[in-house]
């Protein structure tokens, strides 16, 4: 499921698409939409796969830890260099120890413990905000090479 939002007021940001994440089919939808957006921005080859894989892992985290949430896909640019922005947002239990969650090998779920550190390696920029009991937001960016 997806919808469009009005363009955000932030400079450099244009309209975004929102993919609701609540089932494993939504993971496929999110990564396919992200891949299409990345291709339209000029990404090619392994970058498209890397972006789609990162989206897949972020969406998977949402289902695993928070049951539901959303992936917001948008574009950005830095000094004329286009990039894709992926925001994964949930209102789940939050991550009690973010720095631990970012250390390789750490996982409380059923995953391989590669989730967040893996996504961080795949992307150029990585930000995470998590509040215990109020959810987690992960924002990642990749710039066109």
């Amino acid at each position, binding site marked *: 499921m997806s919808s469009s939002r009005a363009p955000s007021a932030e400079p450099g940001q244009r309209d975004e698409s929102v993919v609701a994440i609540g089932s494993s089919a939504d993971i496929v939808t999110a*990564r396919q939409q992200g*891949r299409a957006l990345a291709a339209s921005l000029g990404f090619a080859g*392994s970058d498209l*796969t*890397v972006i789609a*894989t990162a989206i897949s892992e972020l969406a998977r985290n949402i289902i695993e830890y928070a049951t539901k949430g959303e992936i917001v896909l948008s574009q950005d640019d830095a000094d004329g260099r286009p990039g894709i922005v992926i925001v994964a947002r949930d209102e789940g239990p939050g991550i009690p120890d973010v720095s631990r969650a970012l250390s390789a090998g750490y996982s409380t779920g059923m995953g391989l413990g*590669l989730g967040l550190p893996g996504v961080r*390696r795949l992307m150029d920029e990585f930000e995470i905000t998590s509040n215990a009991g109020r959810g987690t937001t992960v924002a990642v960016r990749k710039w066109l090479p």
Partner: protein
Amino acid sequence: MRVPILKQSQYVIASIQSALSDEDLLQLRDDLVQNVGRYRSRGVIVDVTVLDVMDSFAVRTLRAIAHMIRLRGAETVIVGIQPEVAFAMVQLGLTLEDVTTALDLEEGLAYLNHQMAGAAHVK
């Protein structure tokens, strides 16, 4: 979408046709573990050529398939991992260490034939 599974002589070949959800992957696992017994197959080939993403769940499920098939007395070869997918897997730290992989279906069949010839020789 359910992955079609073909029997070819003493092997079964699962040829993935489109992007798979987690449920599709688990269905594939269950189908293969069943079919290897139904057809008394000695080898299983999973062709992942069309997959443009192999995330942690997909890799973990393929490993599980290979291990279960081994427990059923047959060998598994994963064929067709694309170069971009291999690149992303390495960056993510995903491995298929103890699972046999081959470039494509042809190489996968050649590997299994070689293994079967070796096994026949031992007897």
